[in-house]
C-alpha cells in the first residue's frame, strides 16, 4: 500500500560535512528538499552562532533590495519576471551581488536627488516668470487721474498710482511681488491694510496654471500679489509680513526695460533647465531598468544564501575533525538521494573528500511524512487540521476522500445546487494552471482554490444524492412514473368532483390494491413532493438513514483500529480491545440497524395500525421491560435482546481491565533475556549511536523502562478507564450526533422550497408578455438568493458538520493524531509581493 495509508518510515541520520564544501552541500540539499534539520545548538543565542556574520551580511543586502524595490514601486515599475529559480550563490558571486546592488542603490539615490533639485529650480523660475507676466498687467495700465488708491482683493483691474501722482507725492514707488497660498490671501490683505494703511496698493491675481506645492505635493492655483508702496519702513513691514505668511518673494524690477530683459533671461534659463531635467529623467529610467532586470534574481539568491547559513548555524562544529556535523530526520526511502546530493555538493565546491550520511538509531519519535499529490493534498490537509497523524499510524485521509464529500452530500442533496457546485469546481480544476488563478491574493479565493478537488467531489456526490432525494431546485422529477396511482384511489373511493370540492385533503391508502404499485426504483417517489404530509414520511426515512449510515461509519472506524494494533505488534489488543468494542457496538447498535431493516421489509400497510415502534422496543431492551401494546417484531425477540444486552454489558469489563491486566501479567512473568520489540514499538537507544543531543541521563533512563512501566500501572489503568467510558458513552451520543445528517438535509430542502414558493413562483403568475418581462428581475433575485443562501451558507454549514462528524465521531474510534509533521528544509518558490 502506498504512503497515503500510513506515514513513511523516517530515520535519524547524521551528516558529516567538510567545512569547505558544507555550504554547497546544504545548498544542494535545499534544492531537493528532503531533510529536516535539527538544531544542535539550542542553548546558543543567535548572536553567538558561528555564521552570524554571513547572516548579517545577507540581511544588509536585503535592506538594499528593499530600498531598490521601493524606488521601483514609486516610479510605477514592475520588477522583471524570474525565468528559473537561481541557485544559492558561492562566496565570490555573493560579493559581486553585494557590490553591484550597493552601487546601483547609490546611483539611484544621487540621481533622484539631482532630479528633485532640478525640479525645484524649474518651479521657482516658472513662478518668477508668472509673477513678472502678471505684474506687467498692473504696471503698464494707465490709471485714471485723481482716483484714490484703494486696496481691493482679487480684482485685476486695480489701477496703480500713475507717474503723475508719483511726482505729486515726491516719493519713489517700490514693489514687492511674490506668490502666496490662496487660502492665506484674505488674512494677508487684512493685515497689510491694518499695518500700512494708505501707504500701499496691493493687487492679487490668480496664476493661470496650477503648480505643485512642495510641502504637500498637490497642485494648487497660487495667487500672485504685487504690492506697490512708498517709504522704507513700510517696505520693511511688508517684507516681514510676507515672511510670516510664507510667501515666496521675487524681486520686481523697476523699469519696463529691465522687466522685459529679466523675462527673456528667465525664458532662456527655463529652456536649459527643461533640457537638463529631461536628460536626468532618461538616465533615471535607465538605472531603474537595470534594477528591474537584476533585482528578482538577486533577491532569490540572497534568500537562499541566508537560509543555508541559518541551517549551517544549527550544525555543531567539530573543531578537532574540521568538519560540521548535522543531525537530520530523513525518510528512509530518500537516503540514497541524500548521498547523491552530498556527492554533488562536494564536487561543486571542488573538494576531494566526500561528505557522507550515516543513519543513527534513536528512541525519539520521528516526525510524520505523508506524500500527497495535488489531488490528495486537500483531503490530507483537512485531516491534519485536527491533528497530524502519529508516527506510522493509520491515516484516515484516503477514506475521507470519498466519505467526506458523501456525508456533505447527504446534507446538501439537490441536483441543481450540486450541479452548480460541480461546474464551479470543474472550472477551477480545468484552469488550475493559469497564472491568473494561481496568483490570486484574496485569502478566501485561495482557500476555495486549494480545495477545488474537494468541491468537485462534493458537487458530484450532491448530484447523486439529489437524484435519490428527488430534488432539483426543490422540485421533484419523474424520471420513472410514480408508484402511487391517484386514479385507482379515486375510482375506488368514488371521489367525484363534488366530493373533492368539499374535502380539501384526502389521503391515498396503500391497503387498497392498485394504489401502491411497488417501490420507485431510484430514489424518493415524486408524489411525496406534492403531498402535504411529506415530512412525516421523509423524517422517518432520513432519521433511519442517518442512524444506519452513522453506525456503519463508526463500525468502519473501529475496524481501522485493527491495522494499528497489527502494525505496532500489539496483537493482545485485538482480543482485549477490538473484540469487546465491536461486540458492544454491534450487539446494541448493529441490532438497531437490523431492526430498522427488518421492519422495512416485513411490515406493510396491512399491519399499519398495529406496527411496532422500534424506539419503544429499543428502550425496553435496555430496561428489561416490555410493553403490552407494542407487539414484537419477530417471535423470540425478548430472549434475543436479553442475550445481546448481556453480551454488551459483559464486554465492558473486558475493555476496562483487559489490556492493563495483560500488561501487568507480562511484567510479573519471568522475563526473557532478549527483550524483543513487543512491548516497546520503537528501539531503545544504544550507547554508541545515540543522537548528539542526548545527555548521559537520557541514556540511563532508557534502560529503566520496565521499572518505569511498573510505576505507571496506575496511569495505564486510568487511561484505559477513560478510554472505556469514552467509548461506551460515545457510542450512544455519537449515534445521536449523526442525526445532524437528517437535520441539515431537512433545513436545506425547506430553504429551497421557500425560495421557490416565495420568490420564483411569483414570476410565473402573469402569463402575458408583461409577465415575461417581470420574470427577469424575479429570476435575478432567485439566482442571487440561491447562490448566497443555499450554495454559500448551506454549503459552508454542511461542510462544517461533515468535518465535525469525521473529526469527532469517526476518528475517535481509532485515531490518536499526536504527531508532528516533517518540515524539510527546502527553498520555497519565491512569491513576489
Amino acid at each position: 500500500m502506498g504512503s497515503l495509508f500510513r506515514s513513511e518510515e523516517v530515520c535519524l541520520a547524521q551528516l558529516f560535512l567538510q567545512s569547505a564544501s558544507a555550504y554547497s552541500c546544504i545548498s544542494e540539499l535545499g534544492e531537493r528538499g528532503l531533510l529536516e534539520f535539527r538544531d544542535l545548538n539550542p542553548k546558543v543565542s543567535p548572536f553567538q552562532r558561528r555564521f552570524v556574520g554571513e547572516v548579517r551580511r545577507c540581511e544588509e543586502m536585503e535592506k538594499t533590495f528593499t530600498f531598490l524595490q521601493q524606488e521601483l514601486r514609486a516610479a510605477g515599475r514592475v520588477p522583471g519576471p524570474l525565468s528559473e529559480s537561481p541557485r544559492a550563490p558561492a562566496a565570490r558571486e555573493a560579493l559581486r551581488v553585494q557590490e553591484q546592488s550597493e552601487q546601483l542603490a547609490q546611483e539611484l539615490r544621487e540621481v533622484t536627488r539631482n532630479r528633485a533639485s532640478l525640479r525645484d529650480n524649474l518651479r521657482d523660475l516658472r513662478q518668477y516668470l508668472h509673477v513678472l507676466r502678471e505684474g506687467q498687467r498692473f504696471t503698464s495700465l494707465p490709471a485714471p487721474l485723481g482716483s484714490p488708491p484703494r486696496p481691493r482683493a482679487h480684482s485685476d483691474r486695480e489701477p496703480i498710482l500713475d507717474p503723475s501722482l508719483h511726482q505729486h507725492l515726491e516719493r519713489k514707488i517700490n514693489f514687492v511681488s511674490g506668490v502666496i497660498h490662496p487660502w492665506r490671501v484674505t488674512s494677508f490683505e487684512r493685515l497689510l491694510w491694518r499695518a500700512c494703511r494708505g501707504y500701499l496698493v496691493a493687487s492679487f491675481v490668480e496664476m493661470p496654471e496650477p503648480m505643485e506645492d512642495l510641502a504637500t505635493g498637490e497642485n494648487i492655483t497660487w495667487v500672485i500679489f504685487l504690492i506697490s508702496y512708498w517709504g522704507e519702513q513700510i517696505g520693511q513691514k511688508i517684507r516681514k509680513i510676507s515672511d510670516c505668511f510664507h510667501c515666496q518673494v521675487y524681486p520686481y524690477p523697476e523699469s519696463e526695460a529691465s522687466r522685459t530683459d529679466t523675462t527673456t533671461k528667465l525664458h532662456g534659463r527655463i529652456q536649459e533647465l527643461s533640457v537638463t531635467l529631461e536628460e536626468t529623467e532618461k538616465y533615471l529610467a535607465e538605472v531603474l531598468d537595470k534594477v528591474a532586470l537584476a533585482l528578482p534574481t538577486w533577491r532569490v539568491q540572497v534568500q537562499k544564501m541566508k537560509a543555508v547559513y541559518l541551517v549551517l548555524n544549527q550544525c555543531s562544529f567539530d573543531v578537532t575533525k574540521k568538519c560540521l556535523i548535522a543531525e537530520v530526520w530523513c525518510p528512509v526511502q530518500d537516503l540514497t538521494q541524500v548521498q547523491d546530493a552530498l556527492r554533488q555538493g562536494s564536487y561543486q565546491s571542488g573538494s576531494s573528500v566526500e561528505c557522507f550520511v550515516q543513519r543513527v538509531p534513536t528512541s525519539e519519535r520521528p516526525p510524520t511524512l505523508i506524500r500527497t499529490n495535488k489531488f490528495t493534498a486537500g483531503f490530507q490537509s483537512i485531516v491534519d487540521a485536527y491533528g497530524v497523524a502519529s508516527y506510522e499510524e493509520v491515516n484516515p485521509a484516503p477514506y475521507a476522500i470519498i466519505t467526506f464529500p458523501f456525508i456533505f452530500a447527504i446534507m446538501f442533496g439537490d441536483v441543481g445546487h450540486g450541479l452548480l457546485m460541480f461546474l464551479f469546481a470543474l472550472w477551477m480544476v480545468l484552469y488550475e494552471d493559469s497564472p491568473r488563478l494561481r496568483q490570486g491574493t484574496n485569502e478566501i479565493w485561495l482557500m476555495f482554490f486549494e480545495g477545488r478537488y474537494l468541491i468537485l467531489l462534493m458537487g458530484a456526490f450532491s448530484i447523486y444524492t439529489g437524484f435519490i432525494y428527488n430534488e432539483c431546485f426543490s422540485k421533484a422529477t419523474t424520471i420513472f412514473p410514480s408508484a402511487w396511482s391517484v386514479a385507482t384511489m379515486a375510482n375506488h373511493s368514488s371521489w367525484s368532483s363534488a366530493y373533492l370540492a368539499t374535502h380539501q385533503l384526502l389521503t391515498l391508502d396503500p391497503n387498497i390494491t392498485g394504489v401502491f404499485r411497488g417501490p420507485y426504483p431510484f430514489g424518493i417517489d415524486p408524489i411525496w413532493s406534492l403531498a402535504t404530509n411529506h415530512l412525516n414520511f421523509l423524517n422517518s426515512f432520513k432519521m433511519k438513514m442517518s442512524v444506519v449510515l452513522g453506525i456503519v461509519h463508526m463500525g468502519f472506524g473501529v475496524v481501522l483500529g485493527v491495522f494499528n494494533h497489527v502494525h505496532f505488534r500489539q496483537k493482545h489488543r485485538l482480543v482485549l480491545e477490538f473484540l469487546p468494542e465491536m461486540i458492544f457496538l454491534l450487539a446494541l447498535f448493529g441490532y438497531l440497524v437490523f431492526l430498522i431493516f427488518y421492519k422495512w421489509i416485513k411490515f406493510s400497510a396491512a399491519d399499519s395500525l398495529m406496527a411496532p415502534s422500534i424506539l419503544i422496543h429499543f428502550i425496553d431492551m435496555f430496561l428489561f421491560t416490555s410493553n403490552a401494546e407494542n407487539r414484537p417484531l419477530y417471535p423470540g425477540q425478548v430472549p434475543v435482546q436479553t442475550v445481546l444486552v448481556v453480551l454488551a454489558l459483559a464486554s465492558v469489563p473486558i475493555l476496562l481491565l483487559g489490556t492493563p491486566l495483560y500488561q501487568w501479567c507480562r511484567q510479573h512473568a519471568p522475563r526473557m533475556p532478549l527483550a524483543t520489540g513487543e512491548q516497546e514499538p520503537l528501539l531503545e537507544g544504544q550507547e554508541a549511536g545515540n543522537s548528539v543531543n542526548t545527555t548521559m541521563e537520557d541514556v540511563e533512563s532508557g534502560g529503566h523502562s520496565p521499572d518505569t512501566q511498573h510505576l505507571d500501572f496506575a496511569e495505564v489503568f486510568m487511561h484505559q478507564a477513560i478510554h472505556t467510558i469514552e467509548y461506551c458513552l460515545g457510542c450512544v451520543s455519537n449515534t445521536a450526533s449523526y442525526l445532524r445528517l437528517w437535520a441539515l438535509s431537512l433545513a436545506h430542502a425547506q430553504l429551497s422550497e421557500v425560495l421557490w414558493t416565495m420568490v420564483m413562483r411569483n414570476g410565473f403568475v402573469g402569463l402575458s408578455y408583461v409577465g415575461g418581462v417581470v420574470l427577469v428581475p424575479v429570476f435575478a433575485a432567485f439566482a442571487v438568493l440561491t447562490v448566497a443562501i443555499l450554495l454559500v451558507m448551506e454549503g459552508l454549514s454542511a461542510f462544517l458538520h461533515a468535518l465535525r462528524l469525521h473529526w469527532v465521531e469517526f476518528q475517535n474510534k481509532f485515531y490518536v493524531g499526536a504527531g508532528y509533521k516533517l518540515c524539510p528544509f527546502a527553498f520555497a518558490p519565491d512569491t513576489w509581493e
Partner: protein
Amino acid sequence: AMTAHSFALPIVLFSAFWGLVGIAAPWFVPKGPNRGVIITMLVTTAVCCYLFWLIAILAQANPLFGPQLKNETIWYLRFLWE
C-alpha cells in the same frame, strides 16, 4: 402510471452495477503510485452509494401510510398521470 414497478429488477440491476464498480473494477486499475488510492476510492464509493440507494428503496418498499394530497392536486393528477 399503469405499469407496476417490480422490486426485484432494480435490486438486481443496482447490485450488479455497484458490484462492478466496487468489486470488479479494482482489478483493472493500472499499476502506478496511485493504485492503492484509486482502489480505495472505488470501493468506498460503491459501498456508500449502494447503501444510500438501498436505504431509499427499502424505506418505500412497504409503506405504512400513503401521501395526503390537496383536492386540486387530485383533480390534476387523476387525469395527468393516467
